[in-house]
């Protein structure tokens, strides 16, 4: 398979654990590839390498088989770019900017540019300095798209756009995709990525943690169903049926189970005998998927941290015991971490990631303590309940 963009061991170390480290990915022709990740995780740095603005310390990026640093001019014949930071040259209005840009591109025919202007409802006669963020973004999009080249690189191109315009922009992207263009986009919006992308890479602290294939996620073999029972008895009874429980909310007699698509009929047969309050499918989307991945990553990191600390102090046995404990409670924790990472994604820009990361790790620790406590309580309760239940049955 011929790759349009290919990164091999791409590394740029800014020190202090900042930068990007050993990135490997490749994008095929006509593919739409997404980048997602926390602020400062290295999305923009990667894109700058692809554009040939930065020189890789190790590894390389090629675009159409050309090294993007050495042939930074040649690759621009194929690439159009919407930068993450919008700052226009010192020109009066949008028209003169688009004209200057067309001149630099050697573009004669402005039909497509005019089409884009109409499509995005942009007023290009406005003063560049007085434009709102959304207006600027639209101008930048038109300036990039009007060249109609083969590869599109977008660095958070939909920020600042109003929700309706976001939709239009997504449509526009889909149109471009239809034309067979290769698109690399970084975004904070899972919706957008989900609608457009074929594959999405999750970058965290400069590492690609996971590359998800959207078709896999959408057409998953498994589905999650949330079920609430009218009575506690039935709830407990259902739990004993050994379905894979993803989330358990005993307070509401709710349980979320993961079930293979082929087993769905069997489940309905079982549920026939229960009184349900409701039942709903929990959509398994990209956001969820990455939250899970991220939560796992946090956990892994935290464990690594603990291990490295405890190795020095405690004996092996203790460690082993703890490790087992962790393994046992992993499922429960996962659910909590998901919530945690949800918060994390919605957070606005953080000033110092390092501090933030530390704080989060701390938070996770305290949450874990809570979980451990509640777990013990729950076990006690369970014992009591089972005794009571047993009596009742008898």
């Amino acid at each position, binding site marked *: 398979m011929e790759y349009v963009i290919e990164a091999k061991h791409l590394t740029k170390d800014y020190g202090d654990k900042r930068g990007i480290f050993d990135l490997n990915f490749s994008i095929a022709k006509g593919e739409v590839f997404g980048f997602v990740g926390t602020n400062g995780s290295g999305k923009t740095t990667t894109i700058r390498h692809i554009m040939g603005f930065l020189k890789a310390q190790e590894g390389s990026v090629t675009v159409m088989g050309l090294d993007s640093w050495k042939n930074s001019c040649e690759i*621009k014949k194929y*690439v159009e770019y919407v930068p993450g930071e919008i700052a*226009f*040259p*010192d*020109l009066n209005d949008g028209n003169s900017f688009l004209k200057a*840009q067309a001149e630099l*591109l050697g573009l004669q025919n402005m039909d497509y540019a005019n089409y884009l202007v109409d499509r995005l409802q942009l007023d290009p006669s406005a003063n560049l300095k007085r434009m709102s963020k959304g207006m600027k973004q639209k101008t930048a999009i038109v300036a990039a798209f009007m060249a109609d080249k083969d590869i599109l690189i977008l660095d958070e191109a939909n920020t600042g756009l109003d929700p309706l315009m976001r939709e239009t922009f997504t449509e526009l992207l889909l149109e471009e995709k239809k034309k067979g263009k290769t698109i690399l986009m970084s975004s904070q919006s899972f919706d957008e990525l989900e609608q457009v992308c074929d594959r999405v890479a999750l970058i965290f602290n400069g590492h690609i943690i996971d590359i998800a294939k959207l078709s896999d996620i959408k057409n998953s073999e498994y589905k999650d169903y949330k079920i609430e029972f009218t009575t506690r008895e039935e709830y407990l009874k259902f739990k004993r049926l050994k379905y894979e429980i993803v989330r358990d909310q005993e307070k509401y007699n709710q349980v979320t189970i993961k079930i293979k698509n082929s087993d769905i009929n069997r489940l309905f047969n079982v549920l026939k005998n229960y009184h349900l309050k409701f039942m709903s499918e929990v959509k398994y989307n990209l956001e969820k998927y990455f939250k899970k991945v991220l939560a796992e990553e946090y956990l892994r990191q935290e464990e690594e941290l603990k291990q490295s600390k405890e190795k020095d102090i405690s004996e092996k046995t203790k460690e082993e015991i703890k490790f087992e404990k962790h393994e046992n409670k992993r499922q429960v924790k996962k659910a909590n971490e998901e919530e945690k990472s949800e918060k994390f994604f919605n957070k606005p820009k953080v000033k110092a990631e390092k501090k933030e990361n530390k704080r989060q790790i701390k938070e996770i620790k305290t949450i874990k303590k809570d979980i451990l406590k509640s777990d013990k309580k729950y076990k006690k309760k369970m014992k009591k309940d089972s005794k009571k239940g047993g009596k009742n049955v008898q």
Partner: protein
Amino acid sequence: MFSKALFKQSMKANWVKWVMATASTCIMLAIVIIVLGNLGINNIRDQLKEVFTQADQQTYLKTNAIDSYDLYLNAVDFENGVIMLSDSGMATVLWGFVTSNYDSAEQTFKRENPDITELSESDYEIIRNNAVDSTYTQIVGLIEMFPQYAENFNFEEDELKQLLYFLMLTYEDNKDLTGDTATSENIISALKERFGNYVYDNAYATALTQEDATEETAHASAMSARELASDAFACYDQQKSQAEVDGGTFVYDNDNFKTLANDYVNDMFYQQALLSFGTDGELSEEEQTEAEQMALAAKVMSNTAITTYEFWIQELTTDEEGLPLELTDEEYSDALSKAREEATKSITGQIDAEVSNALEELGNMDIYSLIIGSIFYRIAGLLMPMVFVIMTANGLLAGQVDSGSMAYVLSTPTKRRTVTLTQMTYLIVSLFAMFALLTVTSVIAVWISGGNAFAINYSQILLFNLGAFLTMFAIAGFCFMCSAIFNRTKYSLGIGGGVTIFSLVCTILGLFGSSVVPSAMRIGAMDFFNYLSIVSLYDTVSIMAGSLAYLWKFAILLGIGIVCFIVGIFRFDKKDLPL
């Protein structure tokens, strides 16, 4: 390698700054040249200069007057001596000794040096000296034999030998003056002729030592000295024959001749001054009167000089009662030169030497070249272009990288090299256009102020503009380099602009230590600042003085600019851009 679109974009972004800098600098320059040109700021300087010129002329006139006076008296004295010698019948006797001794000395020399066919001046001198020695021995022997001659040879040895040497020279001029033709009259006229030649030679040699003397002027002044001597002879002859006509005996009266000499010299200067204004027919009545007044002034000055000279001789060589002091030859000649010095002192000679020097320097200071060359072109005129260059150079690269707008240019198929070369071209072209307009403005301003007759001529003003352009070229190179190296405006502006403004301030401070400021106002230590500034390589002093020192400094400025541009271009190709 060049992007028209980017060039246009740079022009659009920077034209306001360019127009502002160009217009303000042109206006400043026009005002400086035209307004100051009409204010006549050099008047005081010119007056001061005239005082010193007049003083020089005075000294020259007075020295000439005294020289002429001395020459006149010497000539008279000489003739008196010759006449006395001839009256006593000694002339022919002495002539006999001289001719025979000279001939034998010449023969001896030729015999001893048979290989010399043509005698050189030094050979003649040996012959003359030998002849003088033998003649002197003969005379001494004669006086011993005939003591009655001693009265006529009342000479010191040196004096006598000098006289004899003079006679030898005369014989050389008149080899045929032997035997019957050697009458005392013939001998006297030969001696007079010889004296005339001697005066001519001396005057010619002296005149040649003077500044801007040519062979022609030296010849003219030597001829007039010779005439003066022959006039003196004529005066003596006339006095003598008048005395004979009156029936009395002629007695040589020194004081009488002094008066005559004074009158003669004064009159001569009067005539000369009149002649220098033109001949009678050419002058209007008014001019004639003016010429006469000036001539009279020259006459009075010459009279004053001679009177002062006589007064000082009297003062230095006689005691309080007017009796002559007993002085050695050396003391006497010292007294004479002292008297001459006092008599030729001009008005500036009477002031203290240091003050006089300071005043003279102030007189020589050219305020135009100070204001136009050292203040306008090196300081005031560079300020606006500097501000333009600092801001523009930063905006062309670093500013666009810092804001991120460079991303739009570099996301099109435009090489970084193309960007740097285009931006460099814009910077250089805009500066060149600025200084082209400045050059046109300055040439017009000089033309209005009087063209080449103005204190600063066309070639100098063109060099000033060229130098200013090269200085700005070097500074632009440096600012461009900073802009290409740094990704942040604060570093690019801070270092590029900082160094540039530092240079300018150092030039201002260094001005007070530079040689263009007169020594009375100069602070030598401030010259140190000139070594800290790149503007020091723009040598306006050398341009004004017409020396070629500015050329290699121009070359260095050009070199700095080129090197900086190249470093900037290569650095920009290789660095990381946060776009």
